[in-house]
């Protein structure tokens, strides 16, 4: 159960692959885990509109390999429709976000910056997320806080998300900003690679993220450069590993009840 145990399989890759390669060929062999960069569609779907790229790890329908399933569902290719991996959402967005987008552009040019501080801007389910280049985060946060048309006085928190399949940008930090003056919200998101998990701290702009950055460091190992005292906050100081990462096992023991054994939660069948 040690988090550093290299033998412990990655729970995410576990869903896609199996150690028994021969059986996998029988049931799900049609689509060997494609990379993100792979061009969408290939030869399969030249007729219709372009499909999103295949999902890097999810395949089949029942989340199980090697079961002797001959239904064909195991060959289904799951498409990667997560909007955060696509490009920018093309404008026009709906009115309110259009105004916000214009305000942001104006504020950035007032501050001597331009829209190239963003990797992309994603509008999804009515919420807007600015993907900020990580070295530009402090100045962008400062503009979002100080510009009169934006005035995002409060940063509600930081949250990490781990996407192990996004090579080069595995760790994401999401910031939720709130403007009381204009009664609106935006999300900022910054990605950093697993091998270089550094993101500049914005505690000097938003003192409220002090604990939130500590929490994100604690759970994901993202190092917020410039934080006044980046220490663990939830886990004990000497804890090995960062528990919310996907390669960190949940742990648990099988439970026996009336003769049947129920495996621990992270070893049960997943339908992802």
């Amino acid at each position, binding site marked *: 159960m040690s988090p550093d145990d290299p033998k412990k399989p990655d729970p995410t890759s576990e869903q896609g692959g199996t150690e028994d390669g021969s059986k996998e060929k029988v049931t799900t062999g049609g689509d060997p885990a494609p990379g993100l960069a792979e061009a969408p569609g290939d030869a399969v779907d030249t007729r219709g509109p372009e499909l999103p790229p295949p999902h890097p790890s999810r395949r089949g329908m029942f989340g199980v390999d090697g079961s002797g399933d001959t239904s064909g569902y195991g060959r289904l290719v799951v498409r990667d*429709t997560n909007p955060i991996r696509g490009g920018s959402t093309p404008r026009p967005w709906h009115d309110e976000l259009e105004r916000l987008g214009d305000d942001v552009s104006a504020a950035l040019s007032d501050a001597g910056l331009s829209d190239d501080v963003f990797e992309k801007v994603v509008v999804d389910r009515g919420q807007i997320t600015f993907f900020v280049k990580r070295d530009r985060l402090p100045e962008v946060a400062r503009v979002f806080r100080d510009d009169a048309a934006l005035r995002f006085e409060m940063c509600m928190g930081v949250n990490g998300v781990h996407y192990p399949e996004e090579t080069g940008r595995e760790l994401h930090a999401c910031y939720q900003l709130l403007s009381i003056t204009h009664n609106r919200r935006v999300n900022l998101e910054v990605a950093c690679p697993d091998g270089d998990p550094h993101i500049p701290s914005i505690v000097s702009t938003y003192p409220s993220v002090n*604990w939130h950055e500590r929490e994100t460091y604690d759970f994901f190992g993202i190092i917020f450069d410039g934080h006044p005292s980046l220490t663990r906050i939830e886990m004990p100081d000497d804890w090995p590993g960062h528990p919310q990462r996907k390669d960190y096992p949940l742990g648990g023991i099988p439970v026996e009840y009336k003769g049947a054994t129920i495996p621990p939660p992270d070893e049960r069948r997943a339908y*992802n």
Partner: protein
Amino acid sequence: MSHNDVTFTPTGADTDDPYAGVRETTEGPVYTVTGQDWSDVVDAAVAGQERIVVNMGPQHPSTHGVLRIILELDGETVTEARCGVGYLHTGIEKNLEYRNWTQGVTFVTRMDYLSPFFNEAAYVLGVEKLLGITDEIPERANVIRVMMMELNRISSHLVAIATGGMEMGALTVMTNGFRERELTLDLFELISGLRMNSAYFRPGGVAQDLPPGAVESVREYLRWMWDHIGEYEDLCNENPIFKGRTVDIGYLDLAGCMALGITGPVLRSTGLPWDIRKTQPYCGYETYDFEVPTRDNADSYDRFRIRVDEIKESLKIVEQCLDRLEPGPVMVADKKIAWPAQLAIGSDGMGNSLDHIRHIMGESMEALIHHFKLVTEGFRVPAGQVYVPVESPRGELGAHVVSEGGTRPWRVHFRDPSFNNLQAVAAMCEGGMIADVIVAIASIDPVMGGCDR
């Protein structure tokens, strides 16, 4: 000095340590630690080098659960105050990633254990937003949700007032507060089956409809509350001792609240009427008639008064909920999302209704498959992420829900107001008296279950 290096190292028979005497027993050496020599402390104080660091908690009864406060004292004045949290971290967010979306409710309800319905609400609103069914939630389900949340706000504020009073020695406030809270929890038990941790809200609606007699019970409760809520005001509002302990204590102005991200009664005690129920409504709050109480002295006394006023506003909202309860479904119509069980009381307690079992076992193979698939596998949620805030009794409770398209959450993070608001302890307590630390923290009303998750 010699006692600096005295640790629990085995000592020889000739060692005569005045601070950690040792005697041999059959179970090994037993040390009796008696602390430092008082004359050393006095000498240091005379030399002006006194620096006392006191650990308040994590088991101090008046720190609201397992909160540890590290105080640096000069006499009785607090020169530095720091919080240590994490003693109640239970890994709920990690566990959610290994359960299906419906099961998640059972976990999140245990985070902030004084306001379980708000945790559930933030989570299910997030899941519903990801599913795109926010507008399809039946009216009756929304009304029940609002009613349960407001009852929960009352019970949570009652605990805040009760424990806050107890910590100042106002024991009658405590006994009264818990008396009324019990009545509220009785309603929860009647409606959801459990006093706490109900898992009553589900993605798509609520777990089951109101039982017979629930409306009458709530009305009776409202009558009782309107009769007794005045007792708190009579006991405290003009009580000189109470005011002496709370007025101007734990001061935090608007700029401080903004910088530290403080929301809830603490923010409203600065005079800013910021309440997400009004400003960014959800669950139909924009259709209810209620006020957002504010006061403008930004101290512990104002926060107490605001909580009492909010209880009254919540009572008004619950009344309106009862008036607009129309018969109808309490779960979304989409059978691919709605939990398939139809619950009923049987001879062995609550369970699937016999009609439902007869239907899936005897009449329709498709219904059986459908039931089986939805219960074992769960529904899939389209990939994406949303951040959904609700106004919990303590402030903004936000759920950041991330889906990768599967039957399990990819990541769920709760922005808990207790976690955030505890950052204000240093600003509120430094420079004050050590006794005021208790009052200031009680006015923040942190719940460590929510803070540590």
